C-alpha cells in the first residue's frame, strides 16, 4: 500500500503522504465519511432545534411582539398571553438559589481544594459527583414531602416572627412558593459549583500560596486574598453554569413553587416559573396561540441558558489557561 507514493496532495491530518486512491482502497475515506455523517448529525440536530423553536413560536411573536415579555395576563380563554410572571418567578427562584448555593458551594470547594488531604478530598468529591447524578424528580419528591412541611411549620413562621418587617417575609405560610423553590434549587446546584470551583482552585499554582504564606499571612489570608482572586474568573464560570442549570430546572421547581402566576415581593407567595408552566400546561394547551406561546417561553429559556453557558465556558477556559503550565497544589 505504501507503494503508491505519488504526487497527489494528502487528504487527512495524520494520513500524510499516502494518496487518496490508496486511502480509498484501505477504507480510510469511507470511515472518514461515515464518522463525518454522524458528527454532522449533531450540528444538524442543534440547528434544527433552534429552527423549530423559532418557527413554532411564530404566532405569539407576531401577535404580541415585545409585549409578550412585559405583560402579566395569562388567560387562555381570551387568548391573552404575557410571560412576565413566569420570567419573574424564574429569575427570583434562580437568584435565591445562587444566594444560598454560592457561599456554601465555594466554601466547600475551598475545603476540598485547600485543606482536605488528597484522599479525603477525592472521596468527598466522589459523593458530590453522585449527588450531581440524583435526578431532579427525586429532589422534587423530597421537596414535596420534606421541605414543604418544614417550611410551613418552622422556617416561614420563624422568618415572619424575626424578619417580618421586611416585605420579603410577609403573607401566609403556605409552604410552597418562591423561597421553597429557591432552597430546593440551591441544594440541586451546589454540587455543580463545588465540582467546577474545586478544579479551578486546584489549578492555582502552588507558588502563589507559598509566596503568601512566606510573607506571613495565615492560611485563610492566603486563600482569601491570593488564591480566590487568582481563581476568580473560573469561579464566576461555575456560578454561571449553576445559574443556567437553575433557570432551566423543571421538575423540582414545578413540584414546590405552587404554580400560580403571581408577581409578589413576598417570597412566601406561590409563584410560577417558565419551565414549570411549560411542563404543566403543554399537554392541555388548546389552540395554536396557546401552544405557541408556551413554545416561545421555551425559546426564551433556550436563549437564556445558551448565553449563560457560553459565558461560563469562556470564563472557565480563561482561568484554566492562566493556571496551566505550572505545578499543581
Amino acid at each position: 500500500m505504501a507503494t503508491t507514493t505519488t504526487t497527489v496532495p494528502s487528504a487527512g491530518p495524520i494520513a500524510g503522504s499516502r494518496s487518496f486512491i490508496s486511502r480509498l482502497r484501505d477504507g480510510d475515506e469511507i470511515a472518514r465519511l461515515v464518522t463525518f455523517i454522524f458528527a454532522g448529525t449533531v450540528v444538524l440536530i442543534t440547528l434544527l432545534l433552534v429552527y423549530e423553536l423559532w418557527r413554532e413560536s411564530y404566532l405569539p411573536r407576531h401577535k404580541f411582539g415585545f409585549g409578550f415579555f412585559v405583560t402579566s395576563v395569562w388567560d387562555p380563554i381570551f387568548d391573552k398571553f404575557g410571560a412576565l410572571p413566569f420570567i419573574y418567578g424564574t429569575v427570583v427562584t434562580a437568584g435565591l438559589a445562587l444566594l444560598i448555593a454560592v457561599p456554601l458551594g465555594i466554601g466547600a470547594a475551598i475545603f476540598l481544594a485547600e485543606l482536605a488531604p488528597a484522599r479525603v478530598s477525592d472521596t468527598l468529591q466522589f459523593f458530590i459527583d453522585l449527588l450531581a447524578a440524583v435526578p431532579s424528580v427525586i429532589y422534587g419528591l423530597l421537596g414535596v414531602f420534606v421541605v414543604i412541611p418544614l417550611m410551613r411549620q418552622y422556617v416561614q413562621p420563624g422568618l415572619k416572627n424575626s424578619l417580618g418587617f421586611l416585605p420579603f417575609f410577609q403573607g401566609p405560610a403556605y409552604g410552597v412558593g418562591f423561597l421553597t423553590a429557591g432552597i430546593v434549587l440551591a441544594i440541586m446546584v451546589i454540587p455543580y459549583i463545588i465540582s467546577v470551583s474545586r478544579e479551578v482552585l486546584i489549578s492555582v499554582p502552588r507558588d502563589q500560596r507559598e509566596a503568601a504564606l512566606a510573607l506571613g499571612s495565615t492560611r485563610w489570608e492566603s486563600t482569601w486574598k491570593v488564591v480566590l482572586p487568582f481563581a476568580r474568573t473560573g469561579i464566576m464560570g461555575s456560578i454561571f453554569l449553576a445559574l443556567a442549570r437553575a433557570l432551566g430546572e423543571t421538575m423540582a421547581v414545578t413540584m414546590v413553587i405552587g404554580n400560580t402566576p403571581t408577581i409578589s415581593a413576598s417570597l412566601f407567595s406561590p409563584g410560577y416559573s417558565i419551565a414549570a408552566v411549560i411542563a404543566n400546561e403543554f399537554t392541555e394547551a388548546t389552540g395554536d396561540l396557546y401552544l405557541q406561546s408556551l413554545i416561545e417561553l421555551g425559546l426564551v429559556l433556550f436563549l437564556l441558558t445558551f448565553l449563560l453557558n457560553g459565558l461560563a465556558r469562556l470564563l472557565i477556559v480563561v482561568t484554566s489557561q492562566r493556571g496551566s503550565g505550572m505545578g499543581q497544589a
Partner: protein
Amino acid sequence: MSTRLRWRKFVSHFMLTMTGLCALVAVAVLFFILGYLVYHGGTSVSWNFFTKLPAPVGEVGGGMANAIVGSAKLLLLACLLGVPIGFFGAIYLAEFSGGTIAFVVRYAADLLNGVPSIVIGIFAYSLVVLPFKHFSTLAGGFALGLMMIPITLRSTEEFLRAVPRALREGAMALGASQWKTIASVVIPAAYRGILTAILLAFARVAGETAPLLFTALGNRFWSPGWTQPTASLPVMIFTYAIAPYDDWHRQAWAAGLVLLSLILIINIVARVILSRGVAVPRT
C-alpha cells in the same frame, strides 16, 4: 503573640472550620436523600411493585410494572439513537477532523448539552409527536437519545484523545490503514473510558422526567406498542407525588428508591471501571 496576630489566627481557624462545615453539609445532603428514600421507599418496595399494574384510583395496592418496562423501552431507544451518533461522531472529532469542522461540531454538542431538558421535550414534540399526531414511546426515546448524544460525544472524544500518539504511529508504521489503526488499536486502548462515558450518559437520562411529559406522556396500562404512549418511572414518581392519595405517595417513594438505586449503582460501576487498570492515562 500580639492581639492582632491572635485575632488573625482566630479568623483563619474560624473560616477554615466554616468551609469544612460547608463541605460536610453538601455531602450530608446525599446521605439524607439516600436514608430518607430507603426509610420510606424500602417498606413500600415489594414483589407487587415490580409485577403488577397500577391499581385503579381509590384502590390500594398495585405496582409499576408497566412503568419499569416503559422506562426500559425508552432507554433502549435512547441508546440506539445516542450511542452511535456520540461514538462515531467522537471518532471523527478525535481522529479524522481538521480544525474548523471539529470546532463547529464541538460547539453544537456543548450547546445541545446546555439546553434545558424541557426544551428538548418541546423539540421532540414538534419533530415526532406532531407529524405522527400521537404521543408515543418513540418520541420519548428520541428526546432521551438527544440528551445522550452530547454527553457520549464529548467524553468519548476526550478518552480517544488520551490514547498516546505513539500507539497510532506504531500501528501505521506496521502498515495498518488509518481505520484499522482506530478499530484495532485506539478504540481497544480507550474502551474503558468509552464504556464509562456511555454508562454515565445512560444514568443521566434514566432519571429525566421533563422531556417525557409531553412525548411519552404516561399510561395507566401496558403500552400497546412503540407508537403508543407509555408509562415511565420518573413520570410516575412525578404524578404520584403530586396526587392527593396516601397510597400513591407510598408508591412514589418506592419508585424513587428503585430509580435512584439504579442511577447510583450505574454511576459507581462506571467510576470503578474507569479507575481500575486504565489502559490510558486519565486526562
